[in-house]
């Protein structure tokens, strides 16, 4: 006699199983499980993962498709994807700095722009320079991520000279604040 007969063990297990269950019983339990499943989080791992922003080439805006990285005195420069105003780099300042005599606002409009050189998204703060009459060079109006004026908190037409000595708008900078 064999010490270990897998065939016989399997057969006796199946016979015990068959004798104690009915086909209808299994069907009803299976049905119950199907109905009840949505009530329980079956995949806690995927549920705990937050949705990510779509950075695929298909999701890019018209601006991002034609942006350039060479000339920061043109509206098509990649960092200007959500600027609405005149470029400080045309007004005696720079992309990071206010022209002499203008004061940077402590608040800004933040945009997410794609750098065409590496294809990555970056956070850009459009910081208005205030307290001098408006500079009239290089006016740009790019609206990535912008909503209409009836959603004012998502609209970049607003002048962001808050917390400055004067609310007079002069020009806008585009400061890189990090990766998005």
């Amino acid at each position: 006699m064999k010490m270990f007969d897998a065939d016989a063990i399997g057969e006796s297990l199946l016979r015990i199983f068959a004798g104690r269950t009915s086909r209808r019983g299994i069907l009803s339990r299976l049905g119950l499980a199907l109905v009840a499943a949505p009530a329980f989080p079956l995949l806690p791992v995927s549920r705990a993962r937050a949705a990510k922003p779509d950075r695929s080439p298909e999701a890019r805006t018209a601006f991002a498709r034609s942006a350039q990285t060479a000339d920061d005195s043109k509206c098509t420069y990649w960092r200007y994807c959500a600027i609405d105003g005149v470029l400080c780099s045309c007004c005696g300042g720079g992309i990071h700095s206010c022209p002499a005599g203008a004061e940077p606002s402590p608040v800004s409009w933040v945009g997410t722009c794609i750098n065409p050189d590496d294809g990555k998204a970056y956070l850009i703060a459009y910081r208005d320079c205030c307290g001098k009459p408006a500079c009239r060079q290089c006016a740009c109006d790019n609206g990535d991520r912008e909503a209409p004026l009836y959603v004012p908190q998502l609209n970049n037409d607003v002048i962001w000279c808050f917390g400055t000595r004067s609310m007079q708008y002069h020009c806008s900078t585009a400061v890189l604040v990090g990766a998005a």
Partner: protein
Amino acid sequence: MHHAASAEAEPARPLPAAITDPDLARSDYVENCGGCHGVQGSAAPAQLPELRNRVGYFLCTPASRAYLIRLPNIAHSRITDNQRLADLVNFMVFGLGGPSTPRDAHPFTAEEVAHERQFALLSTSLKKERARHVESAIRKCHAPISLRLLFPGKPVLRQP
């Protein structure tokens, strides 16, 4: 992750493990809140509530905790995924709140955010609502009376 501005919104203490994606939480904060409230949670002297070392006082009571999520720009954020919004708020509270955030405070969950954002504060005075929660934080959680102001630095006016 290393990038040029990682030092700008550096959390004062380790972020809770409940934040599923800390890099995304930080960049969502900067993109959706940091323009006005400041990349580091401060935009003084602009007339905005300072978050740095202060926002954690609003975890004082269940009502003020709910208030944070019910604020219209949070409740109606274009971040529709509740876990992603919970991550953003947890970055704000635990990353910028500093000592104002109670040691034993538990992070916001996607479920809590999903529930509270249904009750967005749309027909109430946000100033009065804030004042109410500030008073309870002063009374119950040792918040400084300067919390009555939008940012510290000016002398506190005596309450009439």
